[in-house]
């Protein structure tokens, strides 16, 4: 099916474009962008008046739980949630069962996504075999099988020698290492951020420095190795400062944060709310301010959700017992648009951080509406107001701290490779 997206505000940082334009899609590619494009009779017209038309959003950090943990999410439900949230591509983390540490698992994901999924799925392989932390995965084969990065997300590579060699080795192959920066000895049995709230609730705290020290270590190892590194889910002001300093010296470091780290503080844990429990944990107001500053000044390159579905049985329990993580695919866009409303980001920056930058960091060759590019397109209504309701979320899991709350802004059409995969 060919599409003509008419009358929207097309924002595409990859070609410095921000204008009221029409976008014509043919055979899965962007065919033409211009004013008053005419469509032949067989073209489906999407009226985008009053809407933003942007390169399809890319979430470089999600957990699809497939294979092995399909009771939480699977490739079908996860990608349905993705397109409902405006995402045309997601990168799925390797902590599945079995781990994405071999060609068979990577191929299974890619094939299932192609056959049954709603958006592009790019697997991330593991740095270490079985996430064991003791020997490297076959990164060459992982890359050949379609993995776009490697990460032991969920746990750090604790052995600095192995991390150093993994960075070196991955650089040789040309695959990005995504670091889960956490010093486990400092985390101990902590279950939330260490601060006044943990003191009042009597919950064991996780100090900021547990993240900062690991961020610093991995950046130093990358710098020493001359290898690039991407830091996942940055949550502390210390990490922002360390990354900013490294970038200023030309270290090849990029990073992401998640919407909850600029939208919530550890106050959200009050009432022992397990939907506010994640790792890294929600931090304090000054960390939130630093994350916003980092987004604004370019220290933080991407917004990624760390979409982490968990079954109700894993969340409706005592706080210490509850699993870490929240879903994020369907709330990321409105929470991020709020940064634009609040003057933290320009629209251009927002599209950079949710599409162009992630594409560039892991070489997805997306994040652009240039003529000839794959037609991954998100049409956004920035003023649509809606309530987050559990039974309306596409994700199988409902572990979301914003249930019942009002959101402003939503994807109204999500086009993947020229196919209209979602309409609101």
């Amino acid at each position, binding site marked *: 099916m060919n599409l003509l997206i008419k009358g929207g505000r097309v924002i595409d940082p990859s070609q410095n474009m921000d204008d009221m334009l029409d976008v014509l899609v043919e055979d899965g590619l962007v065919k033409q962008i211009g004013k008053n494009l005419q469509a032949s009779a067989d073209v489906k017209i999407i009226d985008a008046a009053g809407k933003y038309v942007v390169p399809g959003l890319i979430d470089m950090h999600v957990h699809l739980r497939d294979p092995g943990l399909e009771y939480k999410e699977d490739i079908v439900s996860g990608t349905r949630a993705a397109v409902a949230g405006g995402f045309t591509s997601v990168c799925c983390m390797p902590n599945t069962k079995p781990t994405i540490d071999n060609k068979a698992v990577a191929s299974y994901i890619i094939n299932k996504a192609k056959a049954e999924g709603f958006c592009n799925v790019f697997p991330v392989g593991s740095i270490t075999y079985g996430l064991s932390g003791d020997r490297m995965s076959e990164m060459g084969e992982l890359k050949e099988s379609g993995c776009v990065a490697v990460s032991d997300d969920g746990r750090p590579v604790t052995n600095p020698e192995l991390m150093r060699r993994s960075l070196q080795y991955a650089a040789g192959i040309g695959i990005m290492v995504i670091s889960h920066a956490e010093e486990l000895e400092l985390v101990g049995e902590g279950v939330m951020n260490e601060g006044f709230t943990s003191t009042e609730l009597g919950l064991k705290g996780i100090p900021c420095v547990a993240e900062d020290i690991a961020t610093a270590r991995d950046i130093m190892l990358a710098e020493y190795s001359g290898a690039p590194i991407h830091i996942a889910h940055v949550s502390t002001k210390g990490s922002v400062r360390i990354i900013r300093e490294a970038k200023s010296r030309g270290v090849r470091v990029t990073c992401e944060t998640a919407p909850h780290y600029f939208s919530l503080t550890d106050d959200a844990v009050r009432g022992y709310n397990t939907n506010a429990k994640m790792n890294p944990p929600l931090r304090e107001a000054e960390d939130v301010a630093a994350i916003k500053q980092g987004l604004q000044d370019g220290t933080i390159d991407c917004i990624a959700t760390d979409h982490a579905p968990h079954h109700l049985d894993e969340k409706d329990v005592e*706080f210490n017992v509850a699993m870490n993580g929240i879903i994020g695919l369907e709330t990321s866009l409105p929470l991020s648009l709020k940064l634009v409303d609040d003057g933290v980001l320009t629209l251009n920056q927002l599209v950079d951080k949710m599409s162009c930058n992630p594409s560039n960091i892991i070489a997805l060759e997306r994040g652009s509406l240039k003529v000839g590019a794959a037609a991954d397109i998100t049409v956004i209504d920035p003023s649509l107001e809606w309530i987050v309701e559990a039974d309306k979320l596409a994700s199988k899991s409902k572990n979301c701290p914003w249930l019942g709350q009002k959101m402003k802004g939503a994807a109204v059409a999500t086009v993947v490779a020229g196919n209209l995969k979602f309409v609101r």
Partner: protein
Amino acid sequence: MAEFKHKHIIALRDLSKADIELLISTAESMREVNSRDIKKVPTLRGKTIINLFYEASTRTRTSFEIAGKRLSADTVNIAPSNSSATKGETLADTALNLLAMKPDIIVMRHAVSGSHYHLAKKVSCSIINAGDGAHEHPSQGLLDLLTMKERFGRLDGLKVAIVGDITHSRVARSNIQGLTKMGSSVFLAGPPTMMPPGVEKLGDVTVCANMKEAIQDADVVMMLRIQQERQGKTLMPNTREYSRYFGLNPENVKLAKPNAMLMHPGPINRGVEMSSQVVDGDQSWILKQVENGVAVRMSMLYHVCGGELE
């Protein structure tokens, strides 16, 4: 007579000054029952109380059991083994099964802070917190207040020093909440490794640089138990050094007001947080705390059952 409107007692943080006053004043009446030859009143006859203790306890569990029995309630003690959680039954399922037997009150001790709030969403009976993680221990806080009131006749304007591992202490948190609400001031001392961030914002709380500063001119000195099994190995060198800097002994006790009252929630590590001379000395109110514990728990059981004093 003021009315007690809470179905559960989970934390002193959730109670008002008037609530606390009511609980203490009822406890004062209950104390009279405990001094009789026949220590039993029919107040809670026909009520069933389950003491569900996920953590070991001698004093608190016995005290709740006696409190229930003196009010003529039927009390049942359950101590699920620590492994029962790993065998698959969740806290909520255990509680729902118990609830099917129609108890009126579940008194629970649990290692996870906040687990009583989770439980309260699942069951229809009243819940009393007998200690949750490092969060609160409201019956201990109330019995400490009752004991201080017995000694001073009031609960405002007191200087109360609390010394020890504040980070891991639910006793300290309940006392901070209770004392602040009643108009007294809390002075904390302990190794910096055992002082939680922002604790001074919990109420009328001053964090002192050392133990001397905290107990200087104090009306009450409350010593906390050192629980090495809970604290891991990184918070202090050893108990020998700890007792040198944070132990109460006949010498440093002189810094407090003359005849200041000395308290400890028990069980005591003699020679660590308190020397035997002060534990057994004239200023010690430790056994009085235990005695008052029964009266306070009778008061708590009585009020969550919606009772009114005749």
